[in-house]
C-alpha cells in the first residue's frame, strides 16, 4: 500500500544562467462524468452522434426552458470525491459564468464557483520505487461543458455543434503540489486510473473525456517551502495557464516547454504576465491565447432558477459502501494475497480491465501461475498484434484458465501448453478438446518413455560414458527424449527414468 512513510521525489531543478530554478505545477482537470444523460437535460451523452442530435430545447437555450439536475451526475461526482478522500459538501449550489461565444447558446455556463460539491482530497502519485508525490486537491465542482465549433467546413462561416453543450463535467482542481513535468503527467494518469476504477469517467482522452489546464510557474529553490509556510502565492512566481491539454504526453511537454520559456523571459530581464496560453503539439511550444473576453470578467452569480443542492449523508454513505476497489488497494491485495512482485502487481493494476482479467483466471487457481501466464504469455503475445488489448483479446479468461488446468492435471507439459496457447489465441476453441483432438497429451506411460530413453542411450554410447562422470549431462538425454516424443513426454517422468537408466 502506498503510504506517506514513503519519500517525496526531489522537485525538478533547471539550471539557468543566473542560478537554479524549480518548477511548480497545478492542474485543473475537466473529466466528463460517465452518465447516460446530460447534467441538466435528458439528452444523450453518447459520443459521435449526428451534429445537434443530442440537443434538447433546454440545451439550445430556448426561452421558457428550465434546467433539471441529473442525480446520476451528482452520484458520480460524490463517488469520485469519496475515492479521492475528499469531503462531500451536503449543501452546494450552482452559479452562472457568463461569456458570449457561439459554442454557448445560453451565454452562461452553469458551474459551482461559490459552493462546490466536493472539497479537499488527495492523489498519491508513484514516481519510482519508494517515491510518492502526494498531490492535495482543492476542490471538485460539477459544471456544464460547452458546444463545439467546426472551422474547416466553409471559408466564411463557422459551424456549431451543441452535442457537447451541457455535458456533465467534474473539474478537479489540484493544489500546486506537482514539482516536475513528469509528475504532472503521472498525476493525470493516476487520476484517470482512479476514475476508471470508480467508473465515474471513461477516461477516453482521444474523445476528449479528460482535458487539463496546466498552471506552471518557476521559482528559486527555497521559495516553495516559504509558500508552504505562509500560503503567500507570490513566493511561487507568476503563473501561466496552458489550456485544454488532452494527453499525458502533451501535459508533460507543455509544462517542460513553459517552465523553460519562463526562465528565459526572466533571465533576459523581461516580465512574465499572468496569462492563458495554448500548447501547439506540432511545434512543441506554448503561445499566448487571445481570451474569449478582452477582460476576463465572467460576472458570476448564483443561478436564480436553481435551488441549493442538498444531499443526505445516508445517501453519500450508501454510495461509499458500494465504491469500487481502487488501484492502490488492489495492488496491495495482489501482493499480499497472491504473493506477486511489486512490478507484476503494478502491471496488473495499470488498467482496470487487466486486473479483472487476471482475477478471472486466478479464481480457484494458483495466483502466481495465473499472473505469469497473463503477463508473459498473454501480454507478450498481444504486443505483437496492433490494436489488440485486454478488452478485445482473443483468449478469454476461461480459455487461459483451461490451459493452466491442463498443466496442473499433468495432461500437457509446460512446453506444449505454450503451443496450445498459440492455437487458442489464433484459432480459438476449447483447450481440453484441442489437446484431445490433436494428440497433444503428455505421455505419462512409463513404458513408452522407457523405450524412448533406451533408444537414445543405445544410440549414444559416448554420451553415456560422459554423463556417468558428469551427471549434469543427463539433461542432454532428457532433451533428446523430449525431442523424440514431440515434447509430449512428461518432463518429470523423463528426468526420473533417464537418471535411473544411467545409474546416476
Amino acid at each position, binding site marked *: 500500500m502506498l503510504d506517506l512513510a514513503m519519500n517525496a521525489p526531489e522537485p525538478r531543478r533547471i539550471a539557468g544562467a543566473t542560478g537554479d530554478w524549480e518548477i511548480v505545477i497545478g492542474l485543473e482537470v475537466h473529466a466528463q462524468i460517465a452518465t447516460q*444523460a446530460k447534467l441538466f437535460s435528458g439528452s444523450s451523452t453518447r459520443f459521435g452522434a449526428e451534429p445537434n442530435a443530442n440537443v434538447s430545447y433546454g440545451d439550445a437555450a430556448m426561452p421558457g426552458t428550465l434546467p*433539471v439536475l441529473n442525480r446520476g451526475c451528482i452520484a458520480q461526482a460524490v463517488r469520485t470525491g469519496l475515492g479521492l478522500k475528499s469531503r462531500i459538501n451536503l449543501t452546494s449550489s450552482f452559479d452562472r459564468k457568463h461569456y458570449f*461565444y457561439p459554442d454557448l447558446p445560453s451565454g452562461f455556463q452553469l458551474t459551482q464557483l461559490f459552493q462546490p460539491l466536493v472539497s479537499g482530497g488527495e492523489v498519491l502519485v508513484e514516481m519510482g520505487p519508494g517515491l510518492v508525490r502526494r498531490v492535495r486537491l482543492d476542490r471538485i465542482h460539477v459544471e456544464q461543458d460547452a458546444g463545439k465549433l467546426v472551422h474547416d*467546413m466553409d*471559408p466564411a*462561416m*463557422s459551424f456549431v455543434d*451543441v452535442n457537447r453543450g451541457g455535458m456533465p463535467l467534474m473539474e478537479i482542481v489540484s493544489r500546486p503540489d506537482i514539482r516536475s513535468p513528469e509528475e504532472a503527467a503521472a498525476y493525470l494518469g493516476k487520476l484517470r486510473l482512479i476514475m476508471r476504477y470508480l467508473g465515474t469517467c471513461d477516461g477516453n482522452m482521444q474523445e476528449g473525456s479528460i482535458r487539463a489546464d496546466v498552471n506552471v510557474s518557476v521559482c528559486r529553490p527555497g521559495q516553495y517551502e516559504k509558500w508552504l509556510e505562509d500560503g503567500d502565492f507570490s513566493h511561487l512566481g507568476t503563473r501561466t495557464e496552458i489550456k485544454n491539454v488532452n494527453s499525458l504526453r502533451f501535459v508533460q511537454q507543455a509544462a517542460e516547454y513553459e517552465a523553460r520559456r519562463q526562465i528565459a523571459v526572466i533571465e533576459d530581464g523581461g516580465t512574465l504576465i499572468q496569462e492563458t496560453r495554448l500548447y501547439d503539439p506540432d511545434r512543441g511550444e506554448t503561445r499566448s491565447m487571445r481570451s474569449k473576453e478582452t477582460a476576463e470578467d465572467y460576472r458570476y452569480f448564483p443561478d436564480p432558477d436553481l*435551488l*441549493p443542492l442538498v444531499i443526505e449523508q445516508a445517501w453519500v454513505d450508501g454510495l461509499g459502501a458500494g465504491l469500487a476497489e481502487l488501484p492502490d488497494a488492489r495492488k496491495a491485495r495482489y501482493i499480499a494475497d497472491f504473493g506477486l512482485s511489486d512490478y507484476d502487481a503494478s502491471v496488473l493494476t495499470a488498467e482496470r480491465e487487466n486486473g479483472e482479467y487476471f482475477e478471472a483466471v486466478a479464481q480457484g487457481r494458483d495466483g502466481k501461475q495465473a499472473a505469469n501466464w497473463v503477463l508473459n504469455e498473454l501480454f507478450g503475445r498481444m504486443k505483437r498484434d496492433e490494436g489488440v488489448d485486454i478488452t478485445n483479446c482473443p483468449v478469454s479468461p476461461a480459455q487461459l484458465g483451461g490451459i493452466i488446468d491442463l498443466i496442473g492435471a499433468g495432461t500437457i507439459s509446460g512446453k506444449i501448453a505454450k503451443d496450445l496457447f498459440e492455437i487458442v489465441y489464433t484459432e480459438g476453441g476449447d483447450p481440453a478438446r484441442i489437446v484431445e483432438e490433436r494428440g497433444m497429451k503428455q505421455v505419462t506411460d512409463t513404458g513408452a518413455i522407457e523405450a524412448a530413453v533406451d533408444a537414445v542411450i543405445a544410440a549414444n554410447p559416448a554420451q553415456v560414458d560422459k554423463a556417468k562422470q558428469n551427471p549434469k549431462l543427463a539433461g542432454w538425454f532428457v532433451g533428446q527424449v523430449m525431442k523424440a516424443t514431440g515434447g509430449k513426454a512428461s518432463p518429470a517422468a523423463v528426468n526420473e527414468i533417464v537418471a535411473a537408466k544411467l545409474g546416476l
Partner: protein
Amino acid sequence: MSIDIATVRSLAHLAQIGIEDGDLQTWAQEFDTMLAAVEPLAAVNVEGVEPMTNPAHSLRLILVEDGVTDGNVQEDVLRGAPDAREGFYAVPKVRE
C-alpha cells in the same frame, strides 16, 4: 456609489449591447438611480447570517434519475437559427 462612463462602456461590451457614446452619460445616471434604490440594504447588519440566494431557500432542488429522455430534435432546435447547414448552426467565421 457613482458609475462612470468607462464602467458603462465596459458593461455594455460584456453584455454585447451597443450603446452610442452620446447615450453613455444617461445610462450612467440611470445606473446610479438604481443603485441608490438598493443602497439602504447596505445598512443592514448581516454578520453571521447565511447568504440567501433564492427566496425559496427552504425548498430543495429536485433531481431526476439518469436516463435519456430528450434530444433528437435536430430540425426543431435549428429551425429558429438565422442560418443552419448540414445539421449545424452556421455563424460568421470565428477566429480562435
